[in-house]
Structures are given as structure tokens and as C-alpha cells.
């Protein structure tokens, strides 16, 4: 199959993913309402925390508030733990039909996930708009930082999707993945910095978080956007993202190579 064919097949899967998000309007509206509430609350709480105080650990009130709002929006688009249906498809045997398609399973899942992400973009936009109206958004320190934070957002999304896929693959061995997924969910929500900015974590935790793939998902793009991480340091963080993308791609390929011989189809 030529590359052009594969690209078209991938785009088809992406389209299916986006459509399956957009078709549930009620779900999207609920998601938007929840995100708006989350953004409003986060802004209010951080403003109270900072009321009458100067910068904490070198982070001023405007930055902390903006971080909370942007991180919440980014997270709701990325949903770093939820958008793969792979574990369910392995468990109920639906995987059989996926394996009869002319596109590799990984690319199918990846295309579908990307589509879901694109379908959820309007949600993030609504959240950001609300934050802007409340005066919680700040501009990046310069064009370069703005651009780099965009690159880092894409990098963060890639790392999130790859990690998610690797954890989902465990289902081929265990048929039950809610345990590992729960750990992963906690890990990604807390350690990616989407709940609390990583600046406020104790030194020992900070040190270990830097060795994990989570900070690349949310913290890296947001802190570059806010100018908390600049210049060489910012480039280094994007470099770390790249390393995670490469590492997790290799790991995913290894896991999948073994998994494809483990395929057992449930339910006849």
C-alpha cells in the first residue's frame, strides 16, 4: 500500500473520530458547561489564594491564574486518559474487525484518537474565551515563545496519545486494564501539572517528575506560553518531549509486535 493510500486511510479514521464526538451534541454541551465551571472556579480560587500576596516561588498572581485556566482547557481537549477505546475493543472482541482493515491497528487507533481530539477543540476554545473575558489570560512574552508553545502543545498531545496507547495495549495480556489505567489517570492528572502547577511541588517530587513523561503533556506547553520557562530552558523542555515521543514510539512498536501474536478474540 502506498503512503498516499495510508494517509488517506488515516484521515478517514480521523474523520470518523471527529464525527463520533460531534454527533453527541448533548455530551459536548455538558462538557463545555463543566469546563466553564472548572475554569471560573480555578480562576476564583487562585485569585483568593494570591489576594494581597506577592509572588510565590517567583510566580505572580497573574501567571498562576492564567496557568490554572489554560491547563484546565488543554486537559479537557487532551483528555489524557480517556480517548482510547482500544481496551474496550479488546475486551469485547471488536478488535477482530479492526484487524481485517487495510491499515495497521496502531494507525487506526491513532487516527481515531486524533479525530476525537480535533472534535474536542471547540471545547477548549470556549474555555479559553471565558478565561479571556474574566481577564485571566496573559499574552506570551514574545512571538518566538508563542510559536514554541504551539509546537510544545502538539508535542504534549503526541506524548499523551502514545502513553495512553501503551497503557491500553496491556489489555492484550490482562484483558482488564482499569487498574493500570487508574494509576495512569492519577499520574497524568497530577504529575502532568494540569491540577497544580509543577512549580509548587516539593523539590524531591519535582526531581522525579522531570524523569516522567507526564510533565511534557501539559506543564511544558503552558509554562513556555506563560514565559515561566524561557530561552534555552524552553528548548530543552521541547527536546525532552521529542525524546519521549521517540522513546514511547519505540516502546509502543515493541509492545505491539508482541501483542499481535497474543491476539485472542473474545466471544467466538
Amino acid at each position, binding site marked *: *500500500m502506498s503512503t498516499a*493510500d495510508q494517509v*488517506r*486511510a488515516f*484521515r*478517514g*479514521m480521523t*474523520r*470518523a473520530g471527529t*464525527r*463520533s464526538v460531534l*454527533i*453527541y451534541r448533548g455530551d459536548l454541551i455538558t462538557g463545555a458547561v463543566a469546563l466553564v465551571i472548572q475554569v471560573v472556579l480555578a480562576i476564583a480560587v487562585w485569585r483568593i489564594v494570591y489576594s494581597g500576596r506577592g509572588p510565590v516561588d517567583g510566580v505572580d498572581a497573574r501567571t498562576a491564574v492564567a496557568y490554572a485556566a489554560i491547563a484546565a482547557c488543554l486537559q479537557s481537549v487532551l483528555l489524557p486518559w480517556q480517548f482510547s477505546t482500544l481496551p474496550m475493543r479488546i475486551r*469485547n*472482541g*471488536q478488535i*477482530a*474487525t479492526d*484487524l*481485517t*482493515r*487495510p*491499515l*495497521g491497528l496502531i494507525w487506526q487507533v491513532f487516527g481515531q484518537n486524533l479525530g476525537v481530539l480535533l472534535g474536542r477543540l471547540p471545547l477548549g476554545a470556549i474555555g479559553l474565551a471565558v478565561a479571556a473575558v474574566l481577564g485571566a489570560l496573559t499574552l506570551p512574552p514574545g512571538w518566538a515563545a508563542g510559536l514554541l508553545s504551539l509546537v510544545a502543545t502538539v508535542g504534549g498531545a503526541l506524548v499523551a496519545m502514545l502513553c495512553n496507547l501503551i497503557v491500553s495495549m496491556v489489555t492484550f495480556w490482562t484483558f482488564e486494564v482499569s487498574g493500570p489505567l487508574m494509576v495512569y489517570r492519577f499520574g497524568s492528572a497530577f504529575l502532568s501539572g494540569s491540577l497544580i502547577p509543577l512549580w509548587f511541588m516539593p523539590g524531591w517530587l519535582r526531581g522525579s517528575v522531570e524523569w516522567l513523561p507526564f510533565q511534557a503533556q501539559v506543564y511544558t506547553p503552558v509554562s513556555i506560553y506563560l514565559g515561566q520557562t524561557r530561552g534555552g530552558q524552553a528548548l530543552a523542555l521541547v527536546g525532552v518531549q521529542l525524546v519521549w515521543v521517540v522513546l514511547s514510539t519505540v516502546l509502543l512498536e515493541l509492545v505491539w509486535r508482541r501483542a*499481535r*501474536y497474543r*491476539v*485472542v*478474540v473474545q*466471544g*467466538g
Partner: protein
Amino acid sequence: MAVIEAADLVKEFSRPAVLEGRLPRLRGLFSTKRDITRAVNGVNFEVEPGELVGYLGPNGAGKSTTIKMLTGILTPTSGVCRVAGLEPSRDRARNARNIGVVFGQRTQLWYDLPLRDSFEVLSDLYNLDRTTYRKRVGLFTELLDLSAFLDTPVRSLSLGQRMRGDLVAAMLHEPSILFLDEPTVGLDVVAKARLTEFIAETNRSDGTTVVLTTHDMEDVERLCQRIIVIDSGTVLYDGDLSRLKERFMPYRFLVLTLAERSIRRVADIPSATEVEPSAVGTVLPYPDRSVVLRFDPREVTTPELIARASQVYQVDELSIVDPRLTDVISQLYDGLLT
């Protein structure tokens, strides 16, 4: 040249062994012992292009496992299978372009999306150009009467509608080989007839090779010239449908409807045995006036038997009935296993 080949095909599944003795479940957590089941145990067959083959066997015989190896879903433990010259599990994506697959138990359609959207995604997956895509969907919409529900989400379709959608999904890219795993399971008589008619037509007009697994012997009698019967993972029979009947149920039935005033008596007719009317499997119009004789055509010719019977009975009507495939198959399953 054969388009599908299976040579000494074996598939084993292993799962954690169920332990016996004390605290079996607790010890099971730490045990590495595994039970191995052989679902397919050395299957051999070849299918020529354009054949329509019924692949039959009782539940758990290994039918679906074979199909899953031929479609590239499962990797054989040993042995080889080739489909259109490719090894499906090694060349899964390329194999996918040659084949169409329907699993009656599950759908390949996108559950949340309208049926039409699934077709569009498939046209991307198989890289169909716009004209071909429109032509194929138009054709199938007409043949299978899809227009009423093309824009309905798949989750709201009835089983019969969904099956028709699935069949189209499997055939959109004009595969030369179709694997149909219980495509009529759970369908009503009308939906089933429509589907089998469509399958037969596809096989006839496009020369599509079809491998069909089913428990429905009516489907088989309507569709298949050749059948392969497997059980416990091995082939029990491979050949003509009619020869199967000769071999495993060599007899036929002579059904007599006696004249109203004819006295019904126990008669001894040479070379024939009187059996319960239910043995023929069809509803007889006058059960209380019917006599059913089972005979072996190799021992007595039909006219001869009719002549003998009319000497004993005063007959109004008579007919010859062949044994049903269902009975042949259950005979086959029973007989060869015990």
C-alpha cells in the same frame, strides 16, 4: 490454482490453568501453569476461485478460529494458510484489500455514526475513488433496499438492517473473496432469504469466492455446492452436498396418504421400514392418514417400492422426500464422534 489453502493448520490457545486442591484461586495468582486447548488441529483444504463453500461444524468446532486465521486476525500456531497467495497474518493489510469479512456476532460499522458515514470512512480506508464509491453504494442501496436507513445511526438499526449494512461494508471495495461467519444468525425468515439471495447472486455474477459458516442448514442447502464439516478442530467431511447425504443418510422417504376408507394396518413391506411421520421433517397435511416408509434406494427402486406399497394400502397420494440436511449433519456429528 486454489485461492484459499489451509495446510496442517493448527491453532492453540493457552490460558492460566485452573488449579485443584487447597486455595486454588489464591495459588492461581502465583501459578504459571497454563492449560492449552487446540481449537484447530491440523485442518487441510483448498478452495478454488468462484466456489461457494459452506464451512460447518457444531459450536466450538473451530470454524471461527479457522476463519480468523484466514482473515489475518489470528496467527496460526503451526501450519500454513494462504489467501490469494498471501499469508494473512504476516501480510495483514494487503490481505485485507483482497477479502471482505462479515462476523454475524459483531459489526464493523461505526456504532455512533449514520450508516452512510461508515461507508465513507471505508471508502477512505480502501482508497476508493469518488465515482466507484458512488456507483457501489448506489448499487447496494438498490439491491439491499438501504435507502430508508442510510442516514440512521448504526446503534438504532434493527439486526436485519445492520446485517445488510455490514454486508455492504464488507463488499464496498469489491473483494474477490468473502468470509461470512454466521451472517444470518438471529435474522427472521424474510431478512434471511433476502441476504442469502444476495450472497448467491454475488457469487454467481461476480465470481466472488465465498466461505460461509453457519448453523442454518437451510442457508447451506440454498447456497452451497460444496461443504466442509469440521469438529474438534479436524475436517470430518469435504465434498459435495449431495454426496454427503448419500454417505451419511443413504435412505429416502416414501410418504403415502391413504384413501379415506382404507384400513390402516401394520404391514410388512420388504426393503422398507415404517417410521414416525415426524422423521420426514415436514408437516404432513393428513397425519392420521399418512404412512411414512424409509427405504434405501440401493436395495429397492422407487417404482418397485410404490408397487409393493399399493398392494398393501389403498393410496390417494404419494411423494418421495429426501432427508433434511439438519438430520444428516446431526447424524454426522453423532456418528463420527462416538
